[in-house]
């Protein structure tokens, strides 16, 4: 199954890559691959913008506008005039107080 591919915001600067392979390990859709000890964008269109690769790239070679591809979140963001916010987070007041700060 594939989604709208040309909307994807993922950018990869291969000049900064040190070939650690972290992006390959964390991507759930095999967007990255390793070739000659260097990461390559193997399937950019499959990116779902979860942001795992960028967060785990120590070289800062990856940039992506991370977010949740959820229409309900986008709608609630539109209605409240803010950023898309996932409604599945629940009501925090119902959560038990955590022992840690």
């Amino acid at each position, binding site marked *: *199954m*594939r*989604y*709208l*591919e040309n*909307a*994807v*915001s993922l950018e990869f600067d291969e000049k900064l890559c040190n070939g650690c392979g*972290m992006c390959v*390990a*964390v*991507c*759930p*859709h*095999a967007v990255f691959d390793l070739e000659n000890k260097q990461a390559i964008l193997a399937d950019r269109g*499959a*990116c*779902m*913008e*979860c*942001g*795992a690769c960028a*967060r*785990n790239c*120590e070289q800062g070679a990856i940039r992506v*506008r*991370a*977010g*949740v*591809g*959820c*229409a*309900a*979140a*986008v*709608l609630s963001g539109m209605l409240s005039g803010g950023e*898309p916010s*996932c409604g*599945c*987070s*629940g*009501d*925090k007041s*119902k*959560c*038990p107080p*955590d*022992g*840690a*700060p």
Partner: protein
Amino acid sequence: MTTRPKDGSPTLGCAGAPWIDGAVHTAANDVPRVRTELSVRDRFGSARIRWGIGRMRYQVPPGLYAAGNPSPGSPVLVSANYKMSFDRLRAALRGRDAWILILNTDGINVWCAAGKGTFGTEEVVRRVQSTALDRIVSHRTLVVPQLGAPGVSAHMVRRSCGFRVVYGPVRAADLPVYLDSGLKAQLEMRRVRFDLGDRAVLIPVELVMGGTYALLIAAVLVLLGGLTSRGYSLASVRTNGLAGAGLILGAFLCSAVLGPVLLPWLPGRAFSVKGAILGLVMIGALTAGSGLTGSWLHIAAWALLVPTIASFVVMNFTGASTYTSLSGVQREMRFAVPAQIAGAVIGFGLWLTGLFVRGGPGT
């Protein structure tokens, strides 16, 4: 559920929980041992949560737990304090010795919490420190589920607390193979899928979450259905009102069930388009089967309303899917939401007009 000391680690205080089975003595403190066999109650709990009942309160206390009889050299597996995540993990560890480090994600699953950042670098570091993990284990490796990676920065965790993060498989069920192969994940374990079974388990919660709105709209149509050019008529409530309510609920039910089931086979990539096409097929089938009678205005109204409802319901399934991007969803909504509003307004206008104007195959 339990009392916890200030450092946030559960102690024997949660010994009363049915999934606890004694404790393991360590250099730091006693760590509660979990059962790795799921009880009927655990399974019933999961089934209940699939219907959205008490989903936000299905939690376990964050902290360190033991599976089996772990030693200082046993692996540390990290997860969220959503009980379904916790249950999947301990069930995968049957017959093994391991440590389980549960983060506080407010009872949200690993992937969603990682997206929000609650399953994140700071919480990993905080939990490692509050449980005195460095005194309990001799190694410095944390196995974090791959889907936790959107929130966790492996190099930042290492800098902050000295523990190396390695990303384990997407599914807890793959953990035994992963652990046995020396923390090596095969490619297949790294891929997120969205098979028929994965989609089908999401249907109940879609029905529960959207059902309230569908019932509300159906109730409004029942009331409005009594309007005629000669005043309010109970006979019309039966014919137009109940028929309208039935069509609304039918359209919602069919979209919420068939949308997820048929997702890969519905044409188009945008979920709103997939839904609209499903709606057109539904209304086509209904008309062909002579299930749709009444005035021409009402037939036209439902020909617009049913695809609009289906488009909206399936579009909302993007949030449950495992492959849609925020940019893509925003792009499809730029054309889909105005089209859905137009479809709803025009369709409802035609239906209202049809209450006052007669004429058509069914009259």
